């Protein structure tokens, strides 16, 4: 089988400081990758470089589809959850889910279902009134609005309680079985079944 | 008067008498002004609008000052009752200010040949009207009523600065509008048979304000205390 994403020799320099060097990995459909590193080691920078939000110093990022055709990453459906979750304070929980890019044309029941899965009950509450963990759950509910090919999740487990942690582990497993891959970061190895690299 | 039920009982007794007195003074003043007082040699009968125009202008300003004092007390001492007074007074003040604008425009057409000009007194009166409207609008948008009271109090304290501008506008900038005739320091330039009915009207308007304020305050008190026992008690009695 061919990988969906193949990164070769990736290096990144920010303001004359090498953030990471010679990163190599492959992400196969339905498999996960966990990037482990301490604070400031460049995990966030790596994810953003792969997604084209930061220009790499050198290295190749290949996006391959089923027929071994090289593609621009834009033709892939990627989901990125960074430290900033992209949640609008002045929208309700429901609206925050409904009015995202992935969610176009999604019907009401599906939205309720997604929110229920992540345990968000007060769906008509403004997002500004939520706790930090509850905001993160909105973002997790977005994983479900449609099947993205690769999910890039920056520190999925931070600021969450044990219940939410195990919920995420189940979600990832479930999405893997549908052929979706996850690239996640963390400070220490998690329970998720994944290939691990450390930077 | 400090406690709501006490105020409620007290006001029930005073309201009829206050109403009667108001009616009496207003009738005398208006009849005197509109029918008995002599005609103005320049303007003819049109000038009689003055008997409504000037008292309502003075009321519109006084009520705002009253509200600002209430607001000040509310901000400094957090006295709940002052917040309620503020809320009760606002609609009355706004109505009087509207009356000034209307009577002024009606008066302006024959005397200045236009309904409206952008001069300092007229503009500042219009602004006073907007401030009233804003205070009322604001109060209704904030759900927590004590919070609403406080926000409105803050605004009314600042807002009161418009009053001297209205008062002084005719002295500071050349305008079409009449300069003051009523002053405390010097005797009026109007003849006494025009001036005294104006005074009576003014007293009548003040009484009317007191009457309306009491009525409004009763409503506000009932609304705020609607969960309390005494309100339920009163309601039961009144519906009987």
């Amino acid at each position, binding site marked *: 089988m061919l990988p969906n994403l193949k990164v070769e020799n990736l290096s990144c320099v920010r303001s004359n400081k090498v953030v990471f060097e010679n990163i190599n990995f492959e992400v196969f459909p339905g498999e996960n990758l966990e990037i482990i590193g301490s604070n400031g080691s460049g995990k966030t920078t790596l994810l953003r470089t792969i997604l084209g939000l930061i220009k790499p110093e050198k290295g190749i990022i290949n996006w391959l589809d089923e027929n071994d055709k090289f593609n621009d990453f834009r033709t892939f459906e990627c989901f990125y959850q960074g430290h*900033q979750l*992209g949640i609008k304070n002045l929208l309700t929980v429901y609206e925050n889910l409904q009015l995202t890019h992935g969610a176009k044309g999604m019907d009401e029941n599906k939205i309720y279902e997604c929110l229920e899965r992540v345990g968000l009950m007060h769906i008509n509450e403004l997002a500004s009134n939520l706790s930090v963990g509850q905001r993160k759950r909105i973002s997790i509910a977005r994983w479900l609005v449609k099947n993205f090919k690769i999910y890039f999740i920056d520190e999925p487990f931070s600021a969450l309680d044990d219940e939410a942690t195990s919920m995420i582990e189940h979600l990832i497993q479930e999405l893997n079985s549908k052929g979706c891959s996850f690239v996640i970061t963390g400070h220490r190895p998690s329970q998720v079944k994944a290939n691990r690299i450390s930077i | 008067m400090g406690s709501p039920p006490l105020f409620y009982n007290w006001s029930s007794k005073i309201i009829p008498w206050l109403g009667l007195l108001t009616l009496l003074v207003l009738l005398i003043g208006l009849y005197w002004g509109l029918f008995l007082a002599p005609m103005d040699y320049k303007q003819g009968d049109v000038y009689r609008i003055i008997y409504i125009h000037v008292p309502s202008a003075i009321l519109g300003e006084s009520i705002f000052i009253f509200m600002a004092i209430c607001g000040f007390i509310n901000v400094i001492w957090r006295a709940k009752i002052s917040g309620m007074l503020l809320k009760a007074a606002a609609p009355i003040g706004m109505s009087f200010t509207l009356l000034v604008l209307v009577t002024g425009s009606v008066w302006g057409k024959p005397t200045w040949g236009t309904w409206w000009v952008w001069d300092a007194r007229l503009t500042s009166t219009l602004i006073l009207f907007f401030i009233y409207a804003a205070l009322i609008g604001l109060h209704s948008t904030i759900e927590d009523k004590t919070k609403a009271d406080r926000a409105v109090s803050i605004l009314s304290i600042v807002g009161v600065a418009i009053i001297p501008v209205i008062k002084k506008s005719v002295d500071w900038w050349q305008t079409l509008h009449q300069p003051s005739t009523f002053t405390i320091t010097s005797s009026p330039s109007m003849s006494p048979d025009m001036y005294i009915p104006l005074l009576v009207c003014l007293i009548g308007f003040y009484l009317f304000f007191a009457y309306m304020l009491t009525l409004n305050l009763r409503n506000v008190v009932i609304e705020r205390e609607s969960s309390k026992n005494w309100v339920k008690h009163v309601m039961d009695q009144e519906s009987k």
Partner: protein
Amino acid sequence: MFGSIFSWLNIILKRDLLIAFRKSSTYITPLVFFLIVVTFFPLALGPQESLLSSLAPGVIWIAALLASLLAVETIFSDDFRDGTLDEFFISLEPSFILVFAKVLIHWLITGLPILFASLIAAIVLYLPFESFIPMLLSLILGTSFMSLLGALGAALSLGRSAILSAIIVLPFSIPTLLMGTSVISSSLTNQDFSGFLMIMGAMLAIGIPLLCLLTVEALLLNYE
């Protein structure tokens, strides 16, 4: 293909309008600014009708221009800060559409209210009734162009280069101002004003694609 772009445009418009609606300052502040300017002039320059109505075109245009430049500074900054802009660049859709949607929203919450307020201003400043239509037409074209220009300025000043943004906005706002004023004052003296409108229309027609593309470039600068 096109269906997907439109449904995306739809989502952005809906979301940002909802937010603007909940945060009332977005549409109230420009209106208040407009009204302040318009009431200021008679007060500061005196209430003589002849002076006012001769200044009216200029005053209305200054007010409209300032008001429409007002909220534009923050057009991208919220999305940039909370990560929504990342989402746009990662999605499959062309970022061009995003910028266009943003400009459209900005116009809807500043330009459109100003259009209504300008009618009040026109009455207050004794502008003759025949000039209302030219005024509205020139305002529609002009404020849209200013929204476009402002968006580019905002994209540039996201990365803190405010001088650049000022340099872009300032020189282009003056021609717009002069052209818009000329439309109204020509109509006051019964002269032909279609030439000015045509130029404004042309500026807008070139501006929409060109400025949107430049704005995308400017936004990408923030992502290196």
